């Protein structure tokens, strides 16, 4: 993603990630959503690392490519864990923490094995890089399905915490936008447009989370009936 537009989106995304953490600290939500904030902090650090690799080795270097794919896979795993903590928030009163954690670990291991199987069957020479790229894509899709299930649970359990609802919904938009873009990328591999779309989507999540932490009180509530697309 070279060029001034690319740089602008990159800097904007990194600044927004810092904004999320600052907003959460300022509004005393840092510990409550610890995993989400660690993800944002980690994402910012990886942006700095990518910038370093980009400057020292160049966009087309194998060092940059490896760093990009490894870090992306690690970030996606972090985001997956952040999503699981949102599950723990929603199912807080049901005392099913143990089962949620176990299912999350099994699903993660299953996705890793599936990705490994897909890559091993292909004739790709960059096996490690391809594995991490495949893992990221599959985790985005798993993340989308899990967020959709969580959203269903929020509606069913009549969750009223506005901040939590907006965190989940923005994560749902992020996962589905990424999954759709990855799928479009596979359908039209020569289309250069995706090089800009992905980072723009990357800015949306920190923007929505920063808003949720900064503007919404942690104890703010809303009527769950207002959220369903079909009126209840």
């Amino acid at each position, binding site marked *: 993603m070279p060029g001034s537009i690319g740089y602008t989106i990159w800097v904007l995304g990194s600044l927004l990630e810092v904004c999320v953490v600052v907003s959460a600290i300022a509004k005393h939500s840092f510990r409550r959503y610890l995993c989400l904030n660690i993800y944002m902090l980690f994402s910012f650090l990886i942006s700095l690392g990518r910038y370093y690799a980009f400057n020292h080795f160049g966009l087309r270097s194998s060092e940059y490519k490896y760093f990009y794919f490894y870090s992306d896979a690690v970030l996606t795993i972090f985001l997956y864990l952040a999503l699981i903590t949102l599950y723990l928030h929603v199912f807080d009163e049901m005392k099913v923490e143990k089962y949620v954690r176990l299912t999350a670990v099994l699903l993660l291991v299953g996705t890793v094995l599936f990705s490994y199987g897909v890559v091993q069957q292909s004739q790709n020479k960059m096996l490690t890089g391809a594995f991490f790229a495949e893992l990221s894509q599959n985790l985005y899709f798993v993340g989308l399905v899990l967020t959709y299930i969580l959203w269903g649970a929020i509606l069913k359990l009549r969750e009223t915490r506005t901040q939590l609802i907006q965190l989940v*919904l923005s994560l749902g*938009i992020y996962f589905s936008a990424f*999954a759709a873009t990855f799928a479009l990328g596979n359908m039209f591999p020569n289309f250069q447009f995706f090089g800009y779309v992905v980072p723009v989507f990357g800015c949306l999540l920190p923007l929505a989370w920063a*808003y949720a932490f*900064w503007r919404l009180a942690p104890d*703010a509530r809303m009527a769950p009936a207002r959220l369903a697309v079909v009126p209840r």
Partner: protein
Amino acid sequence: MATLIFILSAAALLQFFISYCRSLIAASIKQPLSAEVRDVTGIPNTASGEDFARVIQLLDLCPERPEERGRIRAINAYFRLLNVVRSTLARVIPALVTWTEMERGQCTYFAAVTLDRRIAFSRDMLAQQLDA
């Protein structure tokens, strides 16, 4: 496979986007409008979708608050989406007409509440400048 994933993801994106916009609107719907904004916008108790463009024009006249920019863009996009649904799908499914009208009205109410906040913000800024 990629086509199927794309269709599912796009459908999920649409649903999450609608729900997110509704959650933004729901946060402001309980807030009553000041008499001043009611007079300026001509909105009595319930807002209509027809007033949305006018309220947005009024919003553009007030100094912008940076934290509201993203939300207004999201609601603007939602309003356009509702217009598309009204002029396409709602012609085939008449039940959608009532729903889109209600949603469009709520978008207008959201914009009016934002206008109210902006007017209060401008007033505060002016007061601060006069004090200084």
